[in-house]
């Protein structure tokens, strides 16, 4: 930190550059719709909003901390074994998160089953560690981690909200489709609960996102 203080134009904690680190991944640098990282879990746990929320928080925690730890260690890690070091750091953090989830929200932890463990191989985390934390100072790395995890979490919640409200007529377990709709013949779309619909929902989100932001359109 002392090194940072000697920089002549002193950077404040929330300078515009740092704010961009936090906000870009939520919009035009979104890890899921633009960088194509960390897709597996988005698709599998989004049947219910509650499980998605827990997973999103877990990923924010793991990613922020992992980025900080790798960034602190960045001068001491030999480049040849960096992947092993990163995996070890991430795996230890995920073990912590897993234990916490098992202790406090056991039912959600059962529901997420292997997907808590799979945070380790979530490519967002490895990707951001490689691309950012290894070459940047601690505070920007933390912001980058939290920003990317939030971008990931926002898509997770969006997909889960669409799937849960259309598929079971509830949000967070509370009924959102009023009873009179069912009385006049509305039926929940059971199809939305099935796994393939998660893919199609994400596909449509990408479509809308790129339609609004033409710079992202794939030209190849």
């Amino acid at each position, binding site marked *: 930190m002392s090194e940072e203080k000697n920089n002549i134009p002193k950077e404040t904690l929330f300078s515009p550059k740092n704010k961009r680190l936090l906000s870009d991944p939520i919009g035009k640098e979104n890890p899921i*719709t633009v960088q*194509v*990282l*960390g*897709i*597996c*879990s*988005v*698709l*599998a746990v989004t049947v219910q909003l509650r499980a998605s929320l827990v997973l999103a928080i877990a990923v924010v925690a793991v990613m922020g901390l992992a980025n900080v730890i790798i960034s602190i260690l960045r001068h001491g890690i030999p480049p040849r074994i960096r*992947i*092993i070091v990163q*995996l*070890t750091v991430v*795996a*230890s953090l*995920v*073990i912590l998160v*897993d*234990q916490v989830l098992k202790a406090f929200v056991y039912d959600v932890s059962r529901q997420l*089953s*292997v997907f808590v*463990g*799979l945070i*380790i*191989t*979530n*490519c967002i985390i*490895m990707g951001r560690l490689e691309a950012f934390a290894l070459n940047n100072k601690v505070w920007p790395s933390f912001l980058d981690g939290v920003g990317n995890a939030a971008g990931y979490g926002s898509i997770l919640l969006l997909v889960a909200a669409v799937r849960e409200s259309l598929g079971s007529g509830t949000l967070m377990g509370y009924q959102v489709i009023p009873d009179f709709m069912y009385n006049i013949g509305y039926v929940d779309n059971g199809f939305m609960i*099935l*796994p*393939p*619909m*998660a*893919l*199609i929902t*994400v*596909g*449509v989100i*990408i*479509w*809308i*996102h*790129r*339609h609004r932001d*033409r710079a992202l*359109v*794939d*030209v*190849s």
Partner: protein
Amino acid sequence: MEELVSIFVKSIFIDNMVFAYFLGMCSYLAVSRTVQTSVGLGFAVIFVLGITVPVNYLLENYIIGRGALAWLGPQFAAIDLSFLTFIMFIAIIAAMVQLVEMLIEKLSPTLYSSLGIFLPLIAVNCAILGGSLFMQERNYANIAEATSFGLGSGVGWFLAIVGIAAIREKIRYSNVPAPLRGLGITYIITGLMGIAFMSFMGIEL
């Protein structure tokens, strides 16, 4: 024997890694531009899953599971190291990938040059870790069943990536709406393929 075949077929079609659990999507989307490269990656995944799942099965049942250390003596029977599962599995996977890479380089340079770049990538392919975690969750009875599950999952992943690569090669000639090109349409096709695979779901083996 019958049981092994049934696990194998089940893990290819019914519990397909990609279409039922969405594991290994990152490399599935990134490497599926041409059939040739996806065949290479597919074989590498079959190979690594076929090795890591049985090795992790042994690890789970003789070292880190609840009471698994009983073979050392009765005083070890109460030890439960299962909180170490993730870190041990990922260490085994990273080590195995490294080992497999060195072996292939030594034994078959041609295979190595075709798989070369993909092998290190596999260490962070979630289908591999997912395979081991599902193996743990489903409590397979013996190592043969675990191996059969590992190989079957690998073959299922192979079929999925080769299928999507073939479709993506063809779709280049179609007039897809511009914002949907590339990633978007790939998701939607994968979704449709998943729906097709769901027709296997009712089959009892």
